[in-house]
């Protein structure tokens, strides 16, 4: 046998050896897919480990990414709990049978919107936080341009905002899809599409990610971003001249959710985490980690920075209808044909 063959053999063996060495995580750890900001994810997992002594292996991904992963892993699930991320993705996963049904005794302690999310998902998911849609407005840029701040959805189509507004593309972002659904629910479908066509003239860019318009507004790359209000607050807290505005006609909201992955490796630990996540103690971690959504448990104190949902006119958002795959597909393809195709 030649030297090179021996090396080849050695290299192959080394690969296998390393693979083996790196293989097989400790099976007793709870595996959580986390869908909120990394800081909050960390804080939450640390709090849970401190409380129960159970070690958590956590991965952070966006809701869409986690959904794609949970679905791909469906035949042999590797995760236990999916915690955080926009509710639509959870409803979809519940519809696909990827989450297992579980009714927590703590359901009664939650805000009505959180309970409704659980009912809509046939108790395969539960609401853990909520956030309303609004505008992140860069006051510095607008003042320089001597343009008033927008207060209503209807203001956004005014000619003085030409090229100043950013919103995400609803095909890629759950935030933008929620906006689309909100407008349809406020104005009715046809007027809503007319409104978006007018709005199109003022929009400088349809971003890919939902929170990107808030970042752009913070940096002054745009002066108005249509985003979830708590994403705007994050920019304000980070020192950017961003003011968060709730539209006067009323606005829609998201219910961030949690679910137990069906067939996951540690179902009992998953339930422990689920119960813990619904306590005020767990939900207080959000504020410490600069996340300003409204928490699901009624007893959780509201962060001083959080946008007050009770002062915002919230519409009666029909999650069941607008979260269903068929309705989503129909609205998105209409958006593609009437707005996405425009130059």
């Amino acid at each position, binding site marked *: 046998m030649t030297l090179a063959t021996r090396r080849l053999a050695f290299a192959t063996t080394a690969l*296998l050896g390393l*693979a083996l060495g790196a293989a097989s995580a400790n099976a007793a750890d709870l*595996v959580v897919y986390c869908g909120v900001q990394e800081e909050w994810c960390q804080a939450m997992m640390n709090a849970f480990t401190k409380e129960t002594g159970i070690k958590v292996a956590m991965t952070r991904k966006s809701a869409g990414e986690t959904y794609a992963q949970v679905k*791909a892993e469906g035949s042999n699930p590797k995760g236990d709990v999916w915690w955080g991320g926009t509710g639509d993705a959870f409803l979809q996963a519940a519809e696909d049978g990827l989450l297992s049904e579980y009714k927590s005794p703590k359901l009664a302690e939650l805000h009505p919107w959180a309970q409704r999310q659980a009912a809509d998902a046939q108790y395969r998911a539960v609401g853990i936080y909520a956030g309303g849609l609004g505008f992140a407005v860069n006051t510095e840029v607008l003042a320089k341009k001597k343009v008033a701040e927008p207060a209503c959805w209807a203001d956004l189509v005014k000619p003085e905002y030409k090229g100043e507004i950013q919103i995400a593309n609803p095909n890629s972002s759950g935030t933008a899809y929620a906006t689309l659904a909100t407008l349809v629910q406020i104005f009715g479908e046809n007027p809503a599409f007319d409104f978006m066509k007018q709005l199109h003239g003022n929009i*400088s860019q349809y971003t890919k990610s939902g929170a990107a318009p808030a970042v752009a507004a913070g*940096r002054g790359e745009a002066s108005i971003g249509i985003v979830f209000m708590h994403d705007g607050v994050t920019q304000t807290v980070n020192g950017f001249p961003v003011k968060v505005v709730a539209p006067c006609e009323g606005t829609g909201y998201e219910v961030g959710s949690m679910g137990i992955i069906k067939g996951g490796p540690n179902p009992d630990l998953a339930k422990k985490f689920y119960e813990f996540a619904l306590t005020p103690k767990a939900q207080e971690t959000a504020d410490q980690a600069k996340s300003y959504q409204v928490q699901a448990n009624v007893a959780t104190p509201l962060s001083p920075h959080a946008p007050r949902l009770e002062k915002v006119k919230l519409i009666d958002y029909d999650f069941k209808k607008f979260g269903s795959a068929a309705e989503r597909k129909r609205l998105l393809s209409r958006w593609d044909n009437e707005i996405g195709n425009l130059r």
Partner: protein
Amino acid sequence: MFRSHLLWLIVGWIAWTIAPWYGFASSRQPILGGWPASGLLAGLDDAPWLLPLGLFLALPVPFVATRSRLVGPALVVAGAGGLGWMMLQGVAIIHKGWAWPFLADLFGPIAAGQPGMGFGAMATALAFLFFLTMGLAARGAMKGDRFTTGAIGLLVASISLFVFWPVSTVFSQAMLPDADMSGPAALIHRLTAKDIWSLGCVTGTTRCGVVWNSVVLGTLCGVITTVLGLAFALVATRTTFPYQRLLRLLSVLPIITPPFVIGLAVILLFGRNGTVTLFLAENFGLTATRWIYGLPGILLTQTLAFTPIAFLVLIGVVQGIAPSMEEAAQTLRAGRWQTFRRVTWPLMRPGLANAFLVGFIESLADFGNPLVMGGGYEVLSTKIFYAVVGAQNDPGRAAALGIVLLALCIGAFLVQRRWVGTGSYTTVGGKGFAGTPAELPRWLKNAVYATALPWAAFTFLLYGLILYGGFVENWGRNNTFTLRHYVTAFGLDWNQYGLLWTGRAWNSLFTTLEVSAVSAPLTAAMGLITAYLLVRQRFTGQATFEFMTMLSFAIPGTVIGVAYILAFNQPPVELTGTAAILVVCFVFRNMPVAIRAGVAAMSQLDKNLDECALTLGANSAQTIRRVIMPLLRPAIVAALVYSFVRAITSVSAVIFLVSARHDMATSYIVGRVEIGDFGLAIAYSSVLVVLMGLAIIFIQWIVGERRIARPTPHAPAARPQEVAA
């Protein structure tokens, strides 16, 4: 009897009888005093389907022992049979028991399923594979060269397993029936969608299809990176430019930069509120616009990012062109320009073509830059990403878009092959004196300087700013000095238990470095062996083989990521959640660049060199080690550097493959960028850049320089010939 026969027999037997059969992502309960079950023990226990493997292992033994002339056929039968049986049982019996219910009806129920293959199973499979290739060699395949047959077998098997299988799994999703459409109808509908092919921007008011956007971007990017890469390569090898080393370092910087960072820097300079934009607006009264978003921005960032790759491919080629040919031309009274045009340029064709191909494909598959800089300009890669993870959740569409993207890459690949043609590009022969490199024509030299130097200066400026950005509170708004970002990411603490890694980035940093360090040498080795097989050997199915090696490169990372989950989430090969899946993914994704660099460099080496070695009694493995390898050092460096660095900086494939214990640096950085926490992202990136720079220096030191007997322009005295020595 050959020693290799005996060796692989022993490996096979040990792997089957002693080594733990299952493993990686999940394993079985150990039996017999805590020792994990080997194939034999599990077979005797409750997995009787593993026992027949012993027959296949036993079959060649008498033939090898008696040195029978029938050893070849025996090895072929044992190898093919063993592999076949392993595949059959692996696919039929998964973690839940029988994979399909009709098997249970046929053979009766079984006690339990089996987890994914582990070390023992893999080594047994390898032994069977080499039985097969050694048997074929003994029967006269590839002139009886066991190394060549073994290498082909190993590569074909691993590429089929880690590229072909996952990719076909995901592409079959394009056939998923949609609402009221049957599979094939849905496929056609998806492939012909208006948003892919529309030419609306030429004729009317709507947008153009995403394919045209991608093609325009890819072609521009391929051409520009090739031109810039060539300019740098010429400056570095054919001029007396005093700061060549610095230039080389600078040109490599962008490749070692994590994605998004270049885009961020460009936005902070040229965005509507960027430093340069504001400066121009204040001093020259220009209106601040958002021109950078869209094609200009993507092209700029991609050019910054991919020029180094073109440079790495081209520098080996430019260095390797034998000056003797140019001298011959000049002796025949050709001017400098004629020499360059008629001799140097044609000899560079394989390098140029390969550089363009890499630039084009990189641009098509790139996802980070279009994401940050894209504006309204949509390209295939981002569209695919959001078809998978976006609000649409439409894997069928993603697969169809992936097929379109792949078709574009194949098109570019075929064009490239045509252009290079079948001419001879050999310039490194066994002859002693090679001559002095011809100087470039003066105007060309000036043009090369004029191209390379401003670009280098721009890169330098950009990196200065990036480094600076990590040290200020909030770049662009609050420029006070701070170490806050570095402390958050890389904080250390000391208490009674010893050193505490309190920084948030340590975990992902260690995993990243480990995975990259493991995958880089593997990538380079596999890539260069493949290149050798492609350039130096002729076998049936070679074109298909070459195409298959390019497959994983041409497919966007997102698709690869999902494909890997679909294929490797359950037995027989269960890898999700391990570091192994990251390593495997990187090896097969980055291998094509190693192959391209190897092919480009190897087509310059005279085949006489191999033949000399073979005549003198060396076999092909020795020829590779003693003759080809030393001459391929630039290609080896390119392959190692590229694969190490790409393992650190790639995002899209990794997003789906990272797991809690194996998080990667880039997925952490992306999370920071998403919420606008640029300081931390930049601080982390700066640290990665420095680490990768050190790694590159280390790699160059380990591999060493290629020493071709060629005088430097400063010291015209010819050194003794070291090549054929």
